[in-house]
Every structure is written in structure tokens, then in C-alpha cells.
């Protein structure tokens, strides 16, 4: 890995089709922007057309080499996820990289998605689980394609609360966020196992941005001074994602984060998640309930389904 890797070190992305969810703000915005400058065709998947247009206009004003397209996606609504996948598949016959970036954090009160899931689990995990499943055919059809999912250091204190995944009995904002970000990693590693099982060229990788000043912290006003002191810029925060999405030395199952001060800031390097994020049994179980909850079945355990 090059020392002090930066966005300019990305290989040329001309001809690539890349979806970035939550591309209108923070890390997603910087990811879309950097990829467009490298020549990629970036599909900005956002829930607000207005905010997406404003973001696209700002990037276009910099005259990037690549193109930006907008497609509506509300991860808090499975019908919208399906509509997005349908619309995408109508317009594109390949998908080089899917960046599962959008996220929300630490809502003071329990809120739910359209389908009744606790919103952090619903948006951060289930929405992306469904999206990936619905787009899997395009990914499998594209050589060397990737799924990059943005997790967080918060996975460390997360556990999967199988008895009450949607926090109906008790809600704690940090537990709920931690669960959703641990789910991102379990999902990535399980996806990688399933892709390997069918010898697919597609790989699944994860990234985390350290501590980055974005809109994510909107519900935590009291942290502002702390953030000013410690947080890095969204340009820096996007680097691990960009590395995972584009660099040739990336392998399936890799996880990238910043390299200095407790992985809170710096340039991308390979990092290790906490051991419980690699637990295959938990990952399989989470996959199965996610299938049942979303109704999206994509890569089944090859060994237990066959066509004769």
C-alpha cells in the first residue's frame, strides 16, 4: 500500500458504472465527487431529489471527467429500494461498484422505516441488504465488480440482538447504531463467503471513515467542540471507501480504515474488525433473518439449493 495514499492515486475509472448511496452529503458526497473526477459514471442514489441535485450541481461545477446521474432511493422504504433496482437495471447493463454508504446515527428516539423496522437497522443494514440482493445479477455480470459497505468503529460495541432486532422492547441509541454497523460487517463477510462459494469474480469489502465531521452527528449537538478538535474532513473520511472501491490490490473480505490515532484519522490502511464481526454462524443467521424480513433472496447457500 502506497504511503499516504490519496484520491489522486486512484486508477482511472473511465467506463465504470458506480452507485453511491447517500451521495449528497458527507462521505458519500466526497466519494461520488472523487470518483467522477477519475472518470467514473456515478449514479447518486439519494432520498431527496432536491439535495441530490444541489450536490450534483456542485460537483459538475468543477468539470469532472466522468458523469453524474441521479436516481431516487429511500433506504427506509423497501418499495423504493425495489423501484430503484428496477430503474437502474432498465438503464444499465453493468455495475462495477456498489457503495453502500448512506447511514443515520444515534436517533434520540426510536423511529421506524416504512416497513416497520427500527430505522438504523432498517436503513444502514436491511435497506442495503435488499439493495445488494436486488442488484446482484448486474454485479455478477460485471467482471471484477465490488460491493463496498461503509461500517464504523462503532461495530466494536455492537451485538446482534436477535431476540429483538427492531428494539421494540427497549431502545438504546448506541446499541441500535452499534448493531447496525456490526451488521454491515457481518453482511460483508457473509456476502464474500457466498460469492466465493459460487466462484464469482465479484468481491465484498468494507471500509470505515474514522471520525469525520459530517451531517451524521446532527443529533448530537453537545459533541460539536469535540468534533472540531478531533474529526477529520469528509475528503479524508472518504479515502478508505475510495481505496476499497478502486485499488487493484484489494481482496474480498478486506476492511479499510484510517491509519493514525486509533483509526480515527489519516490515510487508508487495511484494518481488522473485532473478532465477533468475523463470526460465520452469526453472519449466516443474520443473513437468513434479513432475507425473511426483506423478502429479498439472492445468493443462497449453494450447498443447500440446487436446480436439476
Amino acid at each position: 500500500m502506497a504511503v499516504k495514499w490519496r484520491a489522486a492515486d486512484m486508477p482511472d475509472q473511465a467506463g465504470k458504472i458506480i452507485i453511491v448511496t447517500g451521495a449528497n452529503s458527507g462521505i458519500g458526497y466526497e466519494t461520488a465527487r472523487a470518483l467522477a473526477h477519475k472518470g467514473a459514471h456515478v449514479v447518486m442514489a439519494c432520498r431527496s431529489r432536491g439535495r441530490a441535485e444541489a450536490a450534483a450541481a456542485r460537483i459538475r461545477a468543477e468539470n469532472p471527467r466522468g458523469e453524474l446521474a441521479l436516481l431516487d432511493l429511500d433506504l427506509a422504504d423497501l418499495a423504493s429500494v425495489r423501484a430503484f433496482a428496477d430503474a437502474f437495471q432498465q438503464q444499465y447493463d453493468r455495475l462495477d461498484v456498489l457503495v453502500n454508504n448512506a447511514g443515520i446515527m444515534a436517533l434520540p428516539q426510536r423511529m421506524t422505516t416504512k416497513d416497520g423496522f427500527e430505522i438504523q437497522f432498517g436503513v444502514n443494514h436491511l435497506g442495503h441488504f435488499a439493495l445488494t440482493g436486488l442488484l446482484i445479477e448486474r454485479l455478477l455480470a460485471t467482471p471484477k465488480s465490488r460491493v463496498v459497505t461503509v461500517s464504523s468503529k462503532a461495530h466494536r460495541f455492537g451485538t446482534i440482538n436477535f431476540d429483538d432486532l427492531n428494539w421494540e422492547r427497549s431502545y438504546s441509541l448506541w446499541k441500535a447504531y452499534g448493531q447496525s454497523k456490526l451488521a454491515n460487517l457481518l453482511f460483508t463477510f457473509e456476502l464474500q463467503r457466498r460469492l466465493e462459494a459460487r466462484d464469482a469474480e465479484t468481491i465484498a469489502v468494507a471500509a470505515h471513515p474514522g471520525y469525520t465531521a459530517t451531517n451524521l452527528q446532527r443529533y448530537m449537538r453537545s459533541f460539536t467542540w469535540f468534533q472540531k478538535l478531533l474529526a477529520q474532513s469528509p475528503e479524508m473520511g472518504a479515502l478508505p471507501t475510495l481505496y476499497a472501491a478502486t485499488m487493484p490490490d484489494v481482496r474480498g473480505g478486506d476492511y479499510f480504515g484510517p491509519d493514525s490515532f486509533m483509526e480515527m484519522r489519516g490515510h487508508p490502511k487495511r484494518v481488522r474488525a473485532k473478532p465477533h464481526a468475523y463470526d460465520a454462524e452469526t453472519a449466516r443467521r443474520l443473513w437468513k433473518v434479513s432475507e425473511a424480513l426483506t423478502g429479498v433472496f439472492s445468493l443462497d447457500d449453494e450447498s443447500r439449493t440446487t436446480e436439476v
Partner: protein
Amino acid sequence: MATALITGASSGIGMALARVHAEHGGDLVLVARRRERLEALKAELEPAHDVRVFVIVADLAQDGAPRKVYDTVREWGLDVEILINNAGFGLHGLFHTQDPEKLAQMVHVNVLATTILTRFFVPHLVARGRGHVLNVASVAAFMPGPWQAVYYATKAYVLSFSEALADELRTSGVTVTALCPGATETEFKERAQMGRVRGFEMGAMSAREVAEYGYRAMLAGKRVVVPGWRNRLLTFLPRLLPRSWTVVMSRMGMEPL
């Protein structure tokens, strides 16, 4: 609990049987053509009952499909102790106007697949000295059926075959049960393009009721069972009536209203 293989588990009676078996804590091998449906059922049953569900997507109207199903089960190293031949369909209409291809497929699924799957799996059951075969026949097995001539004949075959096999295996520890439902609320009627007929207007049982009844009879080793008193009456009448009357009664049940 033993592992059960169920054909036609993607809807109706087969799906209900799969649920009942999972509730008993048994692992399952589900066979049918509609993969999505089978995957959804697998996703429902595995976490709910802590069982393993295997899926074989197969078209039993194809030559060689039973062999492939059997080979797959062997490859997975599964020990199937319960075989449920449930997949089947009907086709409504006057025989001389019906699509020959469709009729051939019907005989393939209802008759051939049932026979050959049984042939592949039974030796293993006999060797271990226990196991069950449940064949889904129909009240149609007891009489000829104008407007569904071929379907009724396929079910007569299934009943005859099951009873004979049950007798052959009487000392082996393996039981063979023919479940003979009457009108049941499933996708059957629509798939058979039946429209309105008296046989269904008189009320249909739920797939769940039929499945529970058949499953219990199978475990008890009963040979021929008919769920519902009306259906039992219906299968009893042919023993009392002249053959020429039976066919008229049966026609009245199936002719378009």
C-alpha cells in the same frame, strides 16, 4: 425427527405438509419448480423451527428428473426417511379438445414421477426397516371423471399403486399411505382451468386441515385415508351405485356450471 422430502412444496397441500413437518422438528427437502417460493418457505421455516431446509428446483415433468432429485439427496448425504409424493395438477376440459403436451406432462408428474421417486427412495427405507411414503391421490381415484378424464385416471393409478405397495411392504417396517383429498383451497382449481363446477361450489377444505390429517395418518401407517366426512361419503357411493350411475354423479360434479 426424520428428514422428509416433499414434492410440490411451493404451494397448497405440499406447502402445508412442509409446515406441519417442520413444526414436528424435522428437516426438509423441498422440491418444485418455483425457486422463489421454495426459498421463501425455507426462510420462514428454518429460523421458526430450528430445522434445516434443502431446496431442489426441479421440473418433474422432465425425463430423468426423479433420478436427479435422488442423486442430489445422496450427494448431500441426507437420510430421507419420509417421502411425500404430492406434486400434481389437473386439466379441465373435454378430452378430445385438450392439449396433448399438457396431458403428457400431467401423466409424467402425477404418475411417473411418483412411481420412480418411490422406486429410488424405498429400497433405502426397507434396508433400515423403517420409514413412510405418503402419496397424495384424490377422491378422484375412486371413480372415472368426465371433464377431467386423464386427471382422474392418474389418481386411480396412484391409489392402486399405493395400496399394492403397502401390501408388499407390510412386514418391512415401511408404511405407504394414500391421502385422498376432495376439493381443497389451493392453486389447483385455477391451474386446472376449472371455472365454476359443482365439485368445488359445495365447499372446499383448507390445505392445512388436509395436510394435518394426512400427516397424522402417515405416521400412524394408515393405508388409504380421506379427509372430511363429505369426501368419505363421496368415495363410498361408488361401492353402492352401478358403475353407470357413478360416472353420471362424477360428471355432475365436474361439468361447467
